[in-house]
């Protein structure tokens, strides 16, 4: 079901899977998206992949942003993607940010993470990419 109404805000879930407590990056991105007119559902710290997928579906978001600095991305991101697929929502775009080595980033993109932002990425780039991803899914 595409969003038929022009000009409706894009809804995005920002969540931190796993156990690290460093949420500054997620908050900075949430705020930048807010200022760009997104409705940001901020799920916060220590979310399980199950909780993230449930929140995304209940909130009917247009895309999901995951932030991680613990190093557990190779375990947690594919789990989120698999659960989305299982719920028949495999087309929901997922982007990610955090400390993710290039080699891992390549593999995660292959697995279906649509964009990965490392340290130093400009907020402008994140916002523009998020807008593009949401539009591509609609």
């Amino acid at each position, binding site marked *: *079901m595409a*969003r*038929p*109404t022009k000009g*409706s*805000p894009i*809804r995005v879930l920002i969540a931190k899977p796993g156990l690290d407590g460093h949420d500054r990056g997620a908050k900075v991105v*949430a*705020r930048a*998206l*807010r*200022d*760009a*007119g*997104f*409705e*940001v*559902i*901020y*799920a*916060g710290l220590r979310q*399980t992949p*199950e*909780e993230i*997928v*449930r*929140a995304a*579906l*209940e*909130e*009917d978001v247009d895309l999901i942003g995951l932030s991680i600095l613990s190093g557990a991305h190779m375990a947690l991101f594919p789990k989120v993607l698999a659960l989305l697929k299982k*719920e028949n929502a495999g087309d929901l775009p997922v982007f990610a940010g955090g400390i993710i080595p290039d080699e891992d980033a390549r593999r995660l993109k292959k697995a279906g993470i649509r964009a990965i932002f490392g340290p130093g990425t400009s907020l402008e780039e994140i916002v523009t990419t998020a807008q593009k991803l949401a539009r591509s899914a609609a």
Partner: protein
Amino acid sequence: MTRAARMPSAARAILDGDRRVLARVISQVENRDPTVAPISRALYSRTHAAPIVGVAGPLGVGKSSLINLLVGRLRELDRTVAVVAVDPSSPFSGGSVLGDRIRFERRADDPGVFFRSMASRGEPGGVAAATREVARLMDAAGFDLILVETVGSGQVDVAIRDIATTSVVVLVPHLGDEVQTLKAGLFEIADVFCVNKSDLPGAEIARRDLAELVGLGASRSGWAPPVVLTSTSPPSGIDALWSAVESHERYLDSSGRRTVEERRRLSVEIVERVRERVGDELSARLDRDPALRKLLDEVASRSIDPRTAADRLDRGSVRAR
């Protein structure tokens, strides 16, 4: 039955408990998608008038945390519950950060709970324009109870009164002296008062001030709002809060107020719908329609005043092309 045969598939899915479809139709309502009308129409007669409990109060008093604990309590009682949590939209970008979900700690696999964050999208009064209809969709989806968390704008957070069957007003110690409680607005809409963070000093004074306010009362229609002390970490008073809500719901039935209030809320809703339609149409026409633009020019050049312009529109003496 032909009527069932004509029911839109989305309405059928919501009645059958499909949460995905519920989530999507909620977005359609929020986005004022006109295709939602037949779904809404088909579901209205299937709602079972589930209690809608509003949780209002200034920002930071612990509304989200209280809702989290109330939902826990309701699940223990085997009641299913849906939550709508409203946060403000930015007047600048139109965007928002909806953060009420953070306080929500439920098992990810519990089908008896549904949580939806909602941006106010410019609506004053602490709820969104779509909140009422979304609560109704949740009712149709079979939830036993709907909880609505308001924006937390404070003294004027009163629109919940036109949606909820029971309004809980949450406060904390040291929000102000007893004169604050006399002011119009938030304090008037309470069916239940909740002094949260009651582990903090001053809770007893806040309770006393509120009890005094209730006692000053001429309480409308024979209900004296109880004052409940609660705390969320560690949790205390949650049972008492729920009991207070339940007594109010029972009072609505025993006193006959439920029907009276329901009719009042429905009349507000119908008037709002008409106002919204007429308003939207007029705003659009003031931009596009030459006859109306001319009227606007006259007001702008001070040859007529806004009231006269409104009279002319109302009488239909200014017509569309």
